[in-house]
């Protein structure tokens, strides 16, 4: 297969422009790159140097080539090239398109349909008659292959669906060989699975004409029917191609207690590398398990990936109740022994008294030789049966002696009983023990073979009633009913007229007993049951699965003979689905119990067509993109040649980044040089609130404070900077001024984490709510105050107190007692003194803080008081007259004290020791 295929041009005329390329080459060659003009005082030293560089004044050839290629790519791009690697089925004459159309094709069905349409269109162009057949359909032997015009087939493609079974090659082989003289070519849509007859069918087709095969290259996945192992649902997932590891999800779906279909259980499994199968086990609780209707592979639309369930996974809850108390050691004569043995492997057996058993909501209640029940028990049982329960009763001496149901019909007995009962074949009676009669056709037991050695010695006898005959499920050879049953509401009552142990008959010892229980849907069939259990009954399809694994209830399909059902292989006459007879349901699945998936093997030299639809792929954008990329490279190369690359690289990459990512992000505020500046100097910083006015005031305020610090102290800060909490590194700034603004966004979690780190490592934040004029303190009475509370709630802020009169801030540079800003008289809060701080004798101050308070909180709007313009004038008035000037001076002094405190820590605090030191020096 040619990978590139053919390239066509929509406007091939444009390609003539390629002729201009040599001219361009000549032109570009003649124009050297423009020189760079550069002012350089040391040019005097350069004068007279001879330029030894021999590079000609011409563009280097590779740059020329790059440009020519870029222009060439653009020209070709505008000529609109189109990549069209369509698989061509070359040939004339009729074309047979044979589709496997099995469940394995369903996974890639839409791709197959697309490919089919494409092939049909090609055939239409070539005027070839076409026949499309589904090999899963039954060939109509009397009708030849219907070759028709391709356009007629195109219309039908949408309606085509795969079937849920596998193709029948042998039947089709006969069909096509009968028309071999037509000499048609064949395209075979294979589902990719190997089958015995595939090779011979291919050979037959190849004898008639060329054969091309269309196959999907993805693995076919399927699920084997589920079974019950150790009480768990177990199945095997299959794949047709061993390969890499692949995870699968298997879901069990069914109605929940409310009747809504939903996923009841999920299981994830992994195909190991080079393994074709994987065991899948699901262990839902038995209540849920009984509700499972389908088990399917998630995400695979195929009948092979869906398994419908039948009775075999149902485990009914059977409550066994006997009238006699069990005696120790007398196991074999216990009325329940044989029932227990028969049921325990296939059903969940509950053994308790009736009241307790009813609480467990059993499906079946077995009363073995139970006579009278109390009124509430009878009521409860009747209600339970009417809601769908099955009551199975066995006769026995107690039932016979209880005289229930003799005079009138008892709700918990199917028939009226005659007093006494009868005993045959015993030592004290005439006649021989009775045998069972053949089951009638209406009987649920119809088809079961009768063992010859089953004998009935005693039984209770039904009262002959007009309704008796329709209630009889099994007769003895003399016509006496042995098993009777009656519908009651949604449930039923069944009575075995013998005991459940061997007292009255040896029926419980026979295999028939188990089969009868099974037919009564009391115990459940083991999976893979023999044909004899199915035979003789016509099974009606209840749910039918199509090739995609969709279930639909079917009313139009005819019933299926039990023998056909026993074969288990679905086909046109028996689509996969659920088949029902009476109370029993049998599932027919697309994939058999022992199915293996192996990829089809084709004879060497088989012509394969890609399943991918070979669409026309316009190449224009790619060529234009190539041209743009080459021009971009040209820009870089030109810069490089001109020696401008290194310098401009940053800019160019920034521009490219903007071009590529279209990022609307503002440029990173702190660039390298700003960081260096900050690291090399003392810088006061403020938090950018995003409110331009507030930020401007903060900047001007810190500028004013910096200027005063420079003037008055040895602290010589450079111009203050604003920091973006979300972005900027805080470590370089000893001091942060944070004006609270309602409009500012709350810091993100990362920013909070960094702020906390900053505070812990000795940074100081001056929070300023700037609203002390409102005179409510910082307690959250103002919008800014509430905002501050919100921010502070996230931060690692210690216990606060208003600045005590002996705090270090009052004397770290100037002696101060109040800390006004633009507003005065509001309390300023700092980290509280430790509770054990005490005034030591002879020392003027307590030794308060062994460190810098991490926060100072106030609302005096200090920045406004400090703010100066670029020319050094104060921006905002403070107070009135000389008192105002004094207030501003104190505000500045507070600023100086604060920065001194930040930078020197508790140095001034240590001055408390001065008196002691002086004392020691003897002064």
């Amino acid at each position, binding site marked *: 297969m040619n990978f590139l295929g053919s390239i066509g041009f929509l406007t091939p005329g444009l390609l003539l422009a390629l002729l201009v390329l040599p001219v361009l080459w000549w032109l570009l060659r003649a124009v050297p790159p423009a*020189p760079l*003009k550069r*002012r*350089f005082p*040391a040019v*005097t030293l350069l004068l007279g140097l001879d330029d030894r*560089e021999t590079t000609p004044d011409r563009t280097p050839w590779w740059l020329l080539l790059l440009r020519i290629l870029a222009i060439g790519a653009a020209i070709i791009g505008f000529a609109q090239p189109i990549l069209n690697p369509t698989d061509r089925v070359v040939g004339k004459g009729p074309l047979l398109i044979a589709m496997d159309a099995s469940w394995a094709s369903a996974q890639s069905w839409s791709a197959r349909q697309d490919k089919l349409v494409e092939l049909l269109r090609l055939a239409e162009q070539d005027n070839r008659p076409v026949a499309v057949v589904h090999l899963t359909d039954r060939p109509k032997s009397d009708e030849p292959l219907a070759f028709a015009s391709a356009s007629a087939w195109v219309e039908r493609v949408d309606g085509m669906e795969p079937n849920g079974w596998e193709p029948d090659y042998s039947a089709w082989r006969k069909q096509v060989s009968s028309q071999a003289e037509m000499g048609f070519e064949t395209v075979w849509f294979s589902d990719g699975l190997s089958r015995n007859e595939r090779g011979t069918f291919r050979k037959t087709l190849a004898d008639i004409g060329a054969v091309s095969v269309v196959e999907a290259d993805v693995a076919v996945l399927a699920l084997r029917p589920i079974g019950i192992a150790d009480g768990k649902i177990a199945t095997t997932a299959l794949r047709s191609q061993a390969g890499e590891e692949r995870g699968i999800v298997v879901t069990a779906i069914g109605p929940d207690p409310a009747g809504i279909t939903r996923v009841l259980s999920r299981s994830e499994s992994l195909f190991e590398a080079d393994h074709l199968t994987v065991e899948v086990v699901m262990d839902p609780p038995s209540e849920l398990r009984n509700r499972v209707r389908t088990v399917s592979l998630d995400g695979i639309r195929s009948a092979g990936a869906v398994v419908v369930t039948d009775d075999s996974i149902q485990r009914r809850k059977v409550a066994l109740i006997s009238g006699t108390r069990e005696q120790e050691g007398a196991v074999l004569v216990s009325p329940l022994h044989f029932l227990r043995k028969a049921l325990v492997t296939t059903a969940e057996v509950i053994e308790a008294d009736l009241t307790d058993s009813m609480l467990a909501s059993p499906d079946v209640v077995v009363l073995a030789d139970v006579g009278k029940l109390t009124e509430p028990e009878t009521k409860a049982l009747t209600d339970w049966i009417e809601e769908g329960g099955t009551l199975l009763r066995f006769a026995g001496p107690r039932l016979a002696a209880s005289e229930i149901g003799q005079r009138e019909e008892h709700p918990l007995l199917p028939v009226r009983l005659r007093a006494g009962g009868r005993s045959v074949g015993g030592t004290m009676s005439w006649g021989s023990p009775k045998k069972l009669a053949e089951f009638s056709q209406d009987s649920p037991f119809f088809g079961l073979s009768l063992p010859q050695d089953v004998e009935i010695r005693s039984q209770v006898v039904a009262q002959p009633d007009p309704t008796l005959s329709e209630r009889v499920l099994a007769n003895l050879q003399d016509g006496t009913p042995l098993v009777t049953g009656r519908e009651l509401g949604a449930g039923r009552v069944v009575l075995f007229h013998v005991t459940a142990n061997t007292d009255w008959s040896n029926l419980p010892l026979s295999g028939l007993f188990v089969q009868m229980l099974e037919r009564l849907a009391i115990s459940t069939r083991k999976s893979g049951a023999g044909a004899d259990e199915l035979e003789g009954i016509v099974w009606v399809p209840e749910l039918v699965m199509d090739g995609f694994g969709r279930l639909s209830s079917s009313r139009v399909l005819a019933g299926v003979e039990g023998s056909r059902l026993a074969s288990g292989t679905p086909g046109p006459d028996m689509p996969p689905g659920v088949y029902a007879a009476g109370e029993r349901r049998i599932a027919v699945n697309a994939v058999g119990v022992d199915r293996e998936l192996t990829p089809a093997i084709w004879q060497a030299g088989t012509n394969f067509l890609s399943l991918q639809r070979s669409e026309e792929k316009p190449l224009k954008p790619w060529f234009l993109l190539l041209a743009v990329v080459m021009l971009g490279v040209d820009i870089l190369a030109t810069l490089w*040649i*001109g020696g401008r690359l290194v310098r401009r690289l940053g800019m160019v990459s920034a521009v490219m980044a903007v071009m590529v990512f279209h990022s609307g992000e503002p440029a990173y505020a702190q660039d390298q040089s700003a960081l260096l500046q900050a690291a090399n100097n003392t810088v006061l910083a403020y938090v950018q609130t995003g409110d331009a006015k507030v930020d401007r005031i903060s900047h001007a305020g810190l500028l004013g404070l910096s200027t005063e610090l420079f003037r008055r102290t040895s602290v010589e800060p450079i111009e203050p900077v604003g920091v973006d909490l979300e972005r900027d590194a805080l470590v370089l700034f000893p001091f942060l001024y944070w004006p609270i603004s309602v409009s500012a966004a709350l810091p993100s979690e990362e920013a909070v984490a960094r702020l906390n780190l900053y505070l812990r490592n000795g940074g100081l934040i001056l929070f300023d709510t700037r609203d002390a004029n409102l005179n409510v303190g910082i307690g959250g009475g103002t919008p800014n105050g509430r905002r501050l509370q919100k921010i502070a709630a996230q931060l690692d802020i210690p216990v606060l107190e208003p600045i005590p009169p002996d705090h270090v801030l009052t004397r770290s540079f100037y002696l101060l007692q109040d800390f006004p800003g633009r507003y005065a008289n509001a309390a300023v809060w700092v980290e509280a003194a430790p509770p054990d701080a005490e005034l030591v004798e002879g020392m003027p101050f307590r030794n308060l803080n062994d460190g810098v308070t991490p926060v100072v909180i106030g609302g005096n709007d200090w920045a406004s008081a400090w703010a100066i313009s670029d020319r050094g004038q104060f921006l905002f008035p403070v107070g009135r007259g000389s008192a105002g000037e004094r207030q501003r001076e104190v505000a500045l002094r507070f600023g100086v004290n604060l920065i001194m405190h930040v930078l020197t820590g508790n140095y001034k605090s240590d001055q408390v020791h001065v008196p002691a030191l002086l004392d020691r020096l003897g002064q």
Partner: protein
Amino acid sequence: MNQPEVIHPAKLRKDAEAIASGFPELLAHARHLAATLSLGHHGRRRSGPGDEFWQYRTALAGDHIRDIDWRRSARSDAHFVRQMEWQNVQSVHIWVDRAASMTYRAEGSIESKADRARVLGLATAILLSSAGESVGLMADPEPPKHGRGQITKMAMHLAESTADADYGKPPAKEMGRGNLALFLSDFLGDWDELVEALSRAADQKIEGCLVQILDPSEEDFPFDGRTIFESMEGVLKFETRRAKAIRDDYLIRLAERKAALEALAKRTGWLYTCHHTSVPAQPALMWIHNSLAGAGR
């Protein structure tokens, strides 16, 4: 219709502020720089006429007999001469090159050569003035003076931005015999003019130092590609096809120029150093201060 031109007071003030704007900044910078060398008022640390005792030295032939300190000589066999610390006021002439070439500032440099030269010159003047010496600019025909007024005057003069020629040369100024001089320039101009100016100074028995201030890019020549190099005023031009190829030649030329400057300085008894705008100004100021203190010894 001819309207009489009205000079708006606001505009006048704005212009005046713009003109004066550089001045306090320059002065502050220079003061800040000078403050890093807080030397205090002290002597010249060399013998000469003065009142303070400097040292005894053994008398040599040619010493006047009245210079011999008999009290000291009586304590040993040799004769000693008592020397006083030199305390006469020095006059220092400062030339700050303000030609166009000094305004060069390569991309990435923090300040221009002219900025650095002005700050260095003024800081030196402040230091000298505070040490009691007289300072003056070469461009100023007045003789050097000392005191705050002189510093202010110099600062105002330096703050004026004038770029008249491509390359500067030391102006001819009558300097007193034994005066000191400080030349701050990139010394990239015509060599002969420089030689002539220095010779003229040497003829006047002037000693001093040459500080060559260069931009880092002039030292490294980090250029490549086809380039036309122009002098700042565009008078001189040089075109190269690949700047990198002539880098080595350029560096050799630069080294030659430096060596020639040093040799010239040595011949005339001057001191020479090369200073780059990329490094802090303090070391250069220290060098200037020490050199001027040692010059003329």
